[in-house]
């Protein structure tokens, strides 16, 4: 399954003198193990249950190469429409390279550490060895293995005990025309210690209209009583490919709140996996995908209830037009010891054209007896009664449809707790459907 090109690329990377000298001693072995795993797994096929509705053939056929290291010509004004709030802490990566001139994160509290991955590998190899690759298993995950083998840059965020970071941290992964034909493997490691709180926004933005692959992996440790809000805003170029895997582990009474917005890319797959490893943890996994043309977006969530009295809440909404294809696979596992589990999963899709298609697969495996777990999936068209309501107020035809389509999407957007971000996405979605401005 694996093309020889990736092997050549990997050997070039692994055997380069610079790699030998700079990486910590344990890293080459991790990369080798990951690459070996990738070569034996190959890219997933639709025979793989987890990839049944999503064919990655277009990614396999492309054979993406390493990104060229040309310095960016982008300026802050090019990024202005994507900043959401210029007052947030900000790290900007262009084609996988950190651009310090476009970034601003010096105002973070002094004991909060936010560093480029490469710096951390150089400066704190022992701490990194303890954390990197510990959550994101690649035994059966080819894309995670590929990321682990090829990862070059990314961020490490450490929030110490009791620290509450009030201002959100925005990580922008921007690609331009120089990314054409390239693969970028951003890596993120977040460790929020006991009682710490942090809000993180990852934006994936394609500016050059190129075809490229972003294959990101994030590992998130949410300590006891800690809270991490994690937003992923995927607005890649329409010819691009995006695979993102987030693997979370949650401590006692912790909250992990995730929101995934997928509006870009020809083909995207987003994996949000969390382990509720100690009592009283809460996972909130929400998302919205808005597709048109021949776009394909697949979300897979997996909540592992591994301790008593944990709660999980999921709401995913999808709006599909053209010949687009959406997939939602929500897996919930309730361990025999996870009594008093409270789980709820809701998945809704709105089909705007007869050619649009959605495959939805709730998957609950419950091995405890004292639990409350529900799931519901609806696939539909616009409500005739609501359309009539708008028409009876003089709002006809396309305007009525557009307004109701927006209203459908807005239900998911309402779960966004950062006001500026919610308003920004509401505005984007509103303008997309109604072609007028939201006031």
């Amino acid at each position, binding site marked *: 399954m694996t093309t020889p090109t990736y092997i050549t690329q990997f050997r070039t990377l692994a055997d380069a003198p610079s790699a030998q000298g700079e990486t910590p001693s344990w890293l080459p072995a991790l990369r080798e193990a990951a690459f070996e795993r990738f070569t034996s797994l190959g890219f997933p096929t639709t025979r793989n249950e987890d990839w049944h509705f999503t064919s990655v053939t277009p990614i396999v056929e492309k054979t993406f190469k390493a990104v060229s290291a040309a310095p960016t010509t982008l300026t802050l004004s090019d990024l202005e429409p994507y900043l959401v709030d210029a007052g947030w802490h900000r790290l900007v990566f262009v084609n996988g390279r950190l651009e310090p001139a476009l970034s601003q994160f010096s105002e973070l509290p002094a004991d909060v550490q936010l560093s480029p991955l490469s710096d951390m590998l150089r400066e704190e190899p022992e701490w990194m060895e303890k954390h990197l690759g510990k959550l994101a298993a690649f035994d059966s995950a080819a894309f995670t293995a590929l990321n682990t083998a090829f990862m070059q840059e990314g961020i490490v965020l450490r929030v110490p005990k009791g620290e509450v970071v009030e201002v959100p941290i925005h990580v922008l992964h921007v690609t331009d025309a120089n990314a054409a034909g390239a693969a970028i493997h951003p890596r993120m490691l977040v460790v929020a210690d006991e009682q710490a709180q942090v809000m993180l926004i990852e934006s994936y933005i394609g500016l050059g209209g190129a075809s490229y692959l972003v294959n990101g992996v994030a590992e998130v440790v949410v300590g006891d009583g800690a809270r991490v809000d994690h937003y992923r805003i995927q607005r890649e170029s329409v010819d691009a490919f995006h695979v993102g895997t987030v693997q979370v582990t949650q401590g006692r009474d912790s909250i992990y709140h995730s929101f995934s917005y997928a509006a870009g890319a020809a083909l995207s797959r987003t994996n949000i996996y969390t382990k509720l490893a100690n009592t009283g943890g809460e996972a909130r996994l929400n998302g919205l995908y808005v597709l048109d043309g021949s776009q394909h977006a697949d979300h897979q969530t997996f909540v592992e209830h591994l301790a008593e009295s944990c709660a999980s809440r999921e709401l995913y909404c999808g709006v599909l037009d053209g010949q687009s294809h959406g997939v939602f696979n929500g897996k919930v596992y309730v361990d025999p010891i996870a009594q008093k589990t409270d789980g709820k999963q809701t998945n809704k899709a709105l089909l705007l054209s007869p050619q649009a298609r959605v495959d939805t697969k709730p998957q609950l495996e419950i091995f405890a007896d004292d639990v409350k777990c529900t799931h519901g999936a609806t696939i539909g068209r616009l*409500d*005739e*009664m*609501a359309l*009539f*309501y*708008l*028409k*009876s*107020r*003089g*709002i*006809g*035809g396309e*305007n*009525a449809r557009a*307004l*109701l389509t*927006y*209203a459908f*999407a*807005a*239900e998911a*957007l*309402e779960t966004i707790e950062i006001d500026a971000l919610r308003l920004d996405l*509401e505005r984007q979605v509103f303008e997309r459907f109604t072609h007028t401005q*939201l*006031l």
Partner: protein
Amino acid sequence: MLRITNLHASAGDKEILKGISLEVKAGEVHAIMGPNGSGKSTLAQVIAGHPGYAVTSGSIEYMGQDLLELDAEERAQQGVFLAFQYPVEIPGVTNAYFLRAAYNEIRKSHGQEEADPIEFLDIMEEKLKLVEMDATMMQRSVNAGFSGGEKKRNEILQMAVLGPKLAVLDETDSGLDIDALRIVAGGVNKLKRADNATIVVTHYQRLLNYIIPDFVHVLAGGRIIKSGGKELALELEAKGYDWLLEPAMSNAGA
């Protein structure tokens, strides 16, 4: 203003309206009363242009034109308004946006300029007072999470903003406590003018203590079986519907 002649309408293959004739003139208030399932709400929705009902025969003439030729949005633009029995929730769309969109659609259809958000705020301020609603309601999503009373007040607010010529209130009193009923009825009365007309559809006489009708019609089995003045409503309150239904039904069976 409105002339309904021998109107028959069906939902699917079930005939619900079986020959309704009714004339409403400018300045008049008509009450349509009747037991559950008599076709009252169907009549209201057929006037507003609900696509779920097919008019099989008869006609509706409104302001000299054939109302049945118009789509629901065109009827609204021509001044027909239906206050819904069950107002629809639209999460994510603020009341302010919704009302301004409706107001401007209607203005556009008459070749008038659209109101900008600032102008519209001024219009709203006055209308909100009419139904004793707080300005914060304008920033909430349309009907989403509203109480029953708030929804009905919101309907009357919409009516006040859009200024219809013909308003049809479908069971606007259902689910209202006495204070909300007083506010809703007060709003309707203040909107009454010599050049507009109101049709009040209700099961109970209670609302008619506040909105005094000029004519009362009793609808049963898809037909108007009795018409009279406001005293007919009081008689129905005292005696119920049965005394009217029995002779009507035996006629139908004969």
